[in-house]
């Protein structure tokens, strides 16, 4: 059985500035991982490469054995960015419809309604997400990320801008995904989230400095820059 996510000697350079040093890691199916590190440590770069939004400088990434960004990889991987993006002329409900349908979900309405209810967006379904506040945009992006089927969920800084009810709703969604066997990788500065996962990855200046159980880690030290 191939790993849900695997990287092989993965690097990324922006010009002559290295963003990620050679990184090889395997994340088995169903594992829950927290990815921490200081600002500029390479967390977003790593996640974007796994999602297929960035091309590695060297090395490669596979999602269930398929190249990141390939058709099967896109079918199985959901990416929640730290900067939500929306069409400026579609309502939230229309976003849910089209994203779900592009992922082959024809009977999407019940799931969409459930998500909007959990996230407190039911009354905003006909509004344009581009007009939302920061927190509401985050919630809207979460609903779009969860309306489609997935086997891997990559999340970048999901808690920024969320109120306490939003955070609880998101954590509940993570739990639901975990029950369904989804592999979860969450990049976050919220160190309290680390207690909920079984594996911790820490990056510092583009290099992996910790890979193991959260209980054994000195979190305050791991989030310091080099």
């Amino acid at each position, binding site marked *: 059985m191939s790993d849900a996510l695997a990287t092989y000697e993965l690097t990324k350079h922006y010009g002559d500035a290295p963003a990620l040093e050679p990184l090889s890691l395997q994340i088995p199916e169903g594992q829950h991982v927290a990815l921490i590190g200081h600002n500029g440590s390479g967390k977003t770069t790593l996640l974007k490469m796994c999602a297929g939004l960035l091309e590695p400088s060297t090395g490669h990434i596979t999602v269930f054995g398929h190249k990141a960004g390939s058709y099967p990889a896109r079918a199985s991987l959901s990416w929640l960015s730290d900067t939500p*993006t929306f069409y400026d002329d579609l309502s939230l409900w229309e976003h849910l419809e089209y994203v779900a*349908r592009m*992922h082959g979900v024809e009977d999407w309405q019940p799931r969409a309604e459930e998500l909007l209810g959990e996230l407190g967006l039911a009354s905003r379904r006909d509004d344009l997400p581009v007009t939302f506040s920061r927190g509401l945009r985050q919630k809207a992006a979460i609903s779009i990320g969860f309306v489609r089927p997935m086997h891997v969920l990559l999340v970048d800084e999901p808690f920024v801008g969320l109120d306490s009810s939003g955070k609880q709703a998101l954590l509940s969604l993570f739990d639901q995904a975990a029950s369904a066997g989804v592999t979860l990788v969450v990049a976050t500065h919220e160190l309290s989230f680390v207690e909920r996962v079984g594996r911790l990855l820490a990056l510092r200046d583009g290099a992996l400095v910790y890979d193991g159980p959260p209980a054994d880690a000195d979190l305050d030290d791991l989030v310091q820059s080099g």
Partner: protein
Amino acid sequence: MTDSAPTVAPSIGIAALHDLRDHRKHRRMGDVEWFDLAYRVYIVAIFGADAFLWLSSLIGDDPLSAPSADEVLRNGPAVMGMVAVLVFMSGLRSGAQGGPLALETADVVHVMLAPVDRAHALRRPMVQRVRSVLFLGIALGALAGQLGAQRLPGSPGAWAAGGALYGVTLATLWAGGALLAHGVRLPLWAATTIGAVAIAWQGAALVWGIPGVADLDGGLALWGWRQRPIELLATAFAVGLLVAGIALAGRTSLEALNRRSALVSQLRFAVTMQDLRTVILLRRQLNHENTRRRPWVQLRRPGRWRVWRRGWYGLLRFPAVRLLRMGVTAVVSGVALGVMATGTTAALLVGMFALYLLGLEVLEPLSQEIDHNDRTDQLPIERGRLLLQHIAAPLAALVPFGLLAGGAAALTIAVTDGPPAPGAFAAVSILAVPVTLAGACGSIVSVVKDAPDPVSVANQEAYLPPEVAGFGTAIRTIWPLVVSTLGVLTTLVARAAHTAEPDDASAVIGGAVRGALAAALLLVTTLVWVQRRDRVRAWYRRFVDEGKSYTKQNWS
């Protein structure tokens, strides 16, 4: 748990994508203000027609003499082929830097990351992009053909059709080159090398009369006069490139799309808002043109002239590609002004525009100060004085480019048919630097006028009736170009002196000195404006406020 990824039939995703796009298109069409759109078309047509008529009057309508016409027939394909080569190189470089497509950011995230066939998903935006480029090529080619018809043999209709064929071939060459370069992931250095080789080859064709790589393309530009079917091979080649580029649509880089999507949408907004500074900054980002981390020369000992040093800190961090572009722009301005000196007055426009662009590049330290006006407002120095000091280093940096432009002008005068006018080279050496600085005065005006105003735009326009507020906006946009034009017009003093006394070198030199003085006067006037601008505006505001309060007191 399952160990197989979810599968989605490609047709399902594509069907949803088509529904999405159709839905958005219908909504956009429903939101269009047709009257507003018709008004914009009307304005563009009016200004376009005026510009065409003005260009037409510059070119004149006297038929070329037989020797001149023969020369056009002989060298025209090589010259117009050089244009084709430059266009092709531009397309290759665009593709190598991630172009030519730019999707909405939401499309990159929601569509390109969805399990849909990317080649199919990109087909529509690709067709739209190619279509707009081809339309532009046809329109510009047909207009240029019409201008050619004024002085060359052949009917206006034939020239318009021939020009359109030439334009669409070049547009296809650009689009095909860009798509192919992107699809095969052509490195930028390779795109530049291919283009440089082609330019060198075509340049050799121009100078030594050997067959050029793009002579067939260039020959299409003369189809209004004579037609050679073999030149259609150039069009076929361009079409072949385009087809190959479109076939590689599935290899489009998502990273490039993602990066360009945000920048291009900002760029379009900046163009709409006539925000030239933002357009320049975004173009640099799109072209990966980053400031050097280390300056070319490290300034060591701190000196007294802080603002002067600050200017050089910025100038010495210009990347090589920007310096090269400035050099090319200086050469273009020199060639254009050299051509103008030998009789083609219309070349003045090219020279003016080149110097305007050169000025915008070199005034980066001043632009940076204006970009960060919150810091400027906290400094214990009057803003006008500070901005004036920020201009010193850029003007000094312009001097070598002025000399380069002068060299190009001298070379142009030397290689044009017939002996150079007596005193011509001396005139060029006198005028080179002053005209370059004067031509950049429009750039100074353009940059400084965007500085936040003590009298805000909203307040200013409150004093103007609505009928002229829009006209004022147009004037503010054109005014810097007018100033640059005045700077370049100073070269005509020397030309006029030569026309009056063709065999007298001292007359030409005297004309050049007078022209240089006029250029210096324009520069000084511009600098005084920069320094006094805020004071004058504050005085104007006080004057208007006093008038309003007087009116209120006496007429209420």
